[in-house]
C-alpha cells in the first residue's frame, strides 16, 4: 500500500506542476495586467500546495511552516499588486 501512496503523490505533484506551467503561460501571455496578477496569485497557491505535498512525500512537518509562509506572503503581495493596479500607488 505504500507503493500506491508514493504513486498518487507523484501523480498529484505532476498535476500541480502542470497547473503551475499553465499559470506561467497566462502570466507571460496575459493581455492585461490584472490577468497577470491573477496568474501570479494562482501560482502562489500552487506553490503552497506543492510544499504541502512534499511534506507528505518526505513525511516531515517542517514543510507545513513553509506552506503557511507561502500563503501569507502570497496574500500580502497579491493585495499590494491589486491596490497598485487600482490606484497607481500602494500606500496612500
Amino acid at each position, binding site marked *: 500500500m*505504500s507503493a500506491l501512496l508514493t504513486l*498518487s503523490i507523484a501523480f498529484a505533484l505532476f498535476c500541480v506542476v*502542470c497547473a503551475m506551467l499553465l499559470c506561467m503561460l497566462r502570466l507571460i501571455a496575459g493581455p492585461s495586467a490584472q490577468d497577470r496578477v491573477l496568474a501570479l496569485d494562482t501560482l502562489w497557491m500552487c506553490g503552497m500546495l506543492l510544499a504541502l505535498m512534499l511534506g507528505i512525500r518526505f*513525511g516531515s512537518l517542517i514543510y507545513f511552516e513553509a506552506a503557511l509562509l507561502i500563503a501569507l506572503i502570497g496574500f500580502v503581495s497579491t493585495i499590494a499588486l491589486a*491596490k497598485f493596479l487600482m490606484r497607481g500607488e500602494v500606500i496612500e
Partner: protein
Amino acid sequence: MSPHADLPAWAALLVSLLLILGGLITLVGALGLVRLKNFYQRIHGPAITITLGAGGILGASMLYFTLRQDRLVVHELLITAFIFMTAPVVAMLIMRAAVYRDLRAGRSVSSGRPGDPYRFPDESVDTQKD
C-alpha cells in the same frame, strides 16, 4: 527507503484518493485560467483551485500526519482558515481593480455579442445594438 511504510491500507487509499482529487482539481482550475476568453470569466478558474483543490490536499495532509503520529494533527486547519478568509478579499480586490481599469480606459467589458455575460448597469441599451 519510503517514509510511509507503516500506514494501514485503508488510510493509504483514503490519502491517495484525496491527493488525486486535489491534484486533478488544481489542474482543472489552472486550465480554466488559460482557456477562458474574458478576464471576468477567467477569475472563476482559480476559485476552484483555492477551494476544492487546496481542500483535498490539506485534508490528505491532515489525515496522513494524524495516522502517522497517532495523535490529532490539525494544524493544517490554520492554512484552511487563512485561505478561506483571504480568498474572497483577493478576488474582490482584483475584480475591482479590473473594473476600474476598464472604466478608466473607456472600454466596455462586454462586446455586445450574445454569449458575453457581463454588462455595466449604466451602459445604455441602444449602444449595444450594432
